[in-house]
């Protein structure tokens, strides 16, 4: 996982979940961030899709279990997206 992808996801998550950026780590998840519920998960999906101009499949959405997992998913998705 590159620091760029992680930082971008962290920035979006910080805004959405109203949690200071420095408190969000790669291990941050719905279990550790109180405001990360199913609706905010949907908000996160929509925000990522808008920011990176991608579409996440239901399987990919299920894989978004932590900030680190999301950053890795994005990296792989963006790497496979035709330029």
């Amino acid at each position, binding site marked *: 996982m590159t620091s760029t992808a992680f930082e971008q996801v962290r920035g979006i998550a910080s805004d959405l979940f109203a949690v200071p950026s420095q408190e969000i780590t790669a291990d941050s998840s719905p279990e550790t961030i109180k405001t990360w*519920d*199913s*609706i*905010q*998960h*949907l*908000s996160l*999906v*929509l925000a990522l899709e808008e920011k990176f101009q991608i*579409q996440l499949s*239901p*399987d990919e*959405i*299920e894989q978004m279990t932590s900030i680190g997992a999301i950053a890795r998913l994005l990296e792989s998705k963006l790497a496979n997206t035709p330029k």
Partner: protein
Amino acid sequence: MPIVIEPYRKEHEPAVEAFNQRLQAGGEAIIFFRQAEQQYLAKVEGSNPYQVQFVALEDGTVRGGYALKRQSFSFADGTVRSIGYYHHCLSEGVINQAYARVGSMLLLHAMRQEQMLFCLGMGGYGRPLPNMLIRLGWSHCLIPFYMRVLRPYRFLKQMERLRTSSMRRIAMDVGAISGAGWTGLKALQGGQRFRAPRVAPFSVEQFEEFSDWIDHLWESARGNYGMAAVRDAKTLRILYPANFPHLTRLKVMRDGAPVGWAVVAERRKNPRWGNLRVGTVVDCWAAPGDEVTVIRAATEALEQRSLDVIVSNQSHQAWCTALEHSGFLKTSSNFVFAGSKKLAELLQPFDQQKSRMHLVRGDGDGLPWAY
């Protein structure tokens, strides 16, 4: 097991039945469509509006579902666009927390089908769906609700929606028995009507099927609305088909020329209304300035049916004023409009545009089973 969302097909019906039974056992009043193939708003070649249904499946078990009605709407900029009405979304999450994510999965799926989405009705802000939509940044407002009480005694004795505490029940019973309620309601409603400008004489004809005279009215007035479902004859024949005998279609005329139309009906019995007979202005349209004429015509038609109360939801200021000028009282509403961010881009500034939208009962939750 992963949850997948698929178009609702006949083979899903037994699983939908089981899903409905679980919802009902959990205390939910609303259930999902028992049949996959719906006659009303069926999708056939070239039809608009039409409706499609989807179910959320977990290894063959239905965990949720929703309906998406596709319909053309006219907007303030003069464009006509097909948008989606997201409704009947039901999730196992309301009775089993393990499926809390199903609601957002259904909505996301609908947003993939159509970015310009709206919801209308939803049972009020206290329900989970409007809360979810607000948190997602959808624009929203309450659509005003009006009622005109025709039989105050029965209304006060049976209006379960208002008889929510023992104090209220006692007060309403006293008002009913003493006649004070009758006097008060009649005075309020009469006062509204007394203050209204005079309405020029009009005539009313009942008709079975919408025909071409409708189109001129649609074109002459659509520019007055920031957002309105297309109400030409072709669309209205699909929305309010001639084979719906419980709907009454009224043509309102002055000097022999049509100035508007209304669809009125009596609501089916609903526990919230007790044993009251409730009439509704389901839909309406008028040449600019004739909104009050149409509401008067609709009211008079319903008044002839021994109803207890007439109700209407209207969003556009002209129609709200028409109801007030026809002796309707504005009361608390649970009819919520919420529009997705993409749709809201066409409704800016929303605080001003919301009273220029034409949204009525017929646009939202309820048809055809509520009448």
